[in-house]
């Protein structure tokens, strides 16, 4: 199970990148994609949407289930990965790369520090598997 040390994590299995050009990139973890199975459909938020931390922002659907994806930090949606609409399998193939979901400009960049680090997230995964 791949849990990169450079990322931060939510208990609901979203990863959040470091702040880069005022935005953080968000996707679902390797553990999450493995639990979901083959992803067949992704519903993405609108660019420009204002979100609070914990808002359900996207939906990832696999053959066996559908999962809400929650905003890890409050802010404004600056970009969404529209490539996933035609190629949702990227979430399975590259969860930390081409499978990213959206980018948020955080209201307070320090909010990211309240998320779990890789070691703490590993414990969450072990509890759930």
């Amino acid at each position, binding site marked *: 199970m791949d849990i990169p040390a450079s990322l931060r994590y939510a208990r609901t299995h979203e990863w959040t990148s470091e702040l880069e050009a005022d935005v953080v990139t968000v996707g679902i973890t390797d553990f999450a994609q493995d*639990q979901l199975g*083959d992803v*067949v*459909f992704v519903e993405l938020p609108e660019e420009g949407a204002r979100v609070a931390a914990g808002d359900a922002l996207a939906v990832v*659907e696999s*053959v*066996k*289930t559908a999962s809400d994806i929650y905003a890890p930090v409050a802010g404004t949606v600056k970009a969404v990965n529209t490539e996933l609409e035609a190629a*949702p*399998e990227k979430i399975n193939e590259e969860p930390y790369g081409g499978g990213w979901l959206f980018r948020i400009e955080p209201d307070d960049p320090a909010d990211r520090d309240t998320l779990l680090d890789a070691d703490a997230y590993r414990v969450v995964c072990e509890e759930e598997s």
Partner: protein
Amino acid sequence: MNGRQDELPTIFERSAPGRRAARPPRVEGPAMADLLGAEVLRSAPPALPEVSELDLVRHYTNLAHRQTSIDGNVYPLGSCTMKYNPKVHEEVAAAFEDLHPEQDPSSVQGLLELLGTLQDWLGTITGMDDVTLQPAAGAHGELTGILMIRAFHEANGEGAQRRNVIVPDAAHGTNPATAGMVGYDVVEVPTAADGEVDLAAMKAALGPDTAAVMLTNPSTVGIFETRIQEIADAAHAVGAQLYYDGANLNAIVGKARPGDMGFDVVHMNLHKTLTTPHGGGGPGTGPVGVKAHLAPYLPLPRVRQEVDGTWGLEETRSTSIGRMRSYYGNVGNLVRAYAYIRSLGAEGLANVAEMAVLNANYLRVRMREAGFQPAFDRTCMHEFVARPPEGISTNDVAKALLDEGMHPMTVYFPMVVKEAMMVEPTETESLQTLDAYADALARILQRAARDPGALAEAPTTTPVRRLDEVAAARHPVLRWSPRDEDGEAAAAAD
């Protein structure tokens, strides 16, 4: 032309120019264009298949042989109540099939009396004061119920204030979808460890902005909400309405009534609890019962008995949410439900619930003995949720059941339980059938224990093997198009 079982041609592929099932004599008379006007006539004939009667019979008989149905085998789909539909209902329904909804009420007094009586009975069964028979499915009933709740809040001047509908996380997807369609925000409350709604979370979610709470009892995991009275009191204390999703009514019919538990609105799935046909998408039937304070908002027309004892239709009522469906609903199914209630009576209906619960608990224990893990290890109602032992996937077990000639249970629902298998045998299955199902499941686990890869091949005896579910979901082909000589679809799929 019959081909291999895995490649049945479509009826279009059986077509040959000029072939006919029947050749009626030519009729002399005015030309169609003179009767209807040339502008409504086709310039070219429609592309209908041209086949003989024998081709037609073989085509549909071969298709029917490939179906798994309740008439062929046990079909214990959890949350669906796939009980047997007694054949006598078809004969009763056939007695009414020549009536037309445009007939004057004076000429259909018998049918109107039947519908009026059914309204009363459904009200009695659910503990409600009034009932509409119009909605054409469970989800349509939900829409009808939540629209009435919205009309009620608006009439009280609270339309703008009440923005939320609360649903449990295990709810049928139709509950949040209904709330969303009516324009409400959905607030989800979690399931507690014992399988019931998390009461503290429910109380925290309730407030002056709550329009309604949608619940089913027993819940979607097949467990009776023992705290229902407390939930009802808490909902009513903040002015919210309590909605009963009748999908699980089979567990309590004749024994307990949603109205007595404090529910304000109930929909009933006649195609589940009251044995109207359920396969092939229906038509479903979802009557809705309400307490008196919501009756002014019931849809029109309403079947009612006039003061002189005759039966008629109420067509206007200013507070009504309006018409939810043409005419009076799926009347053929209403007749079937009437026949079912009439043949069972009150005692028979209570016996339905008793046997449905007994059968589910018997199968729950037998599956536990075989090695399946119950999601909630307590007495269940009419259905239960379990999962296979660690390392065996629910999907593999379901596919292996097909090789045993049996239909799988509902799989991967509810989503709050990993690898969920949801089993609802219903009261109509015998002890022998339940034992056969449990034995088949035990054999499957034994096979998997001997050879961990054994189930991956299943099913091996069905007309088609494992379908590519991922490709079907990612690139659904929803319309058949003719194939060219290479067997490729000639038109782009869409």
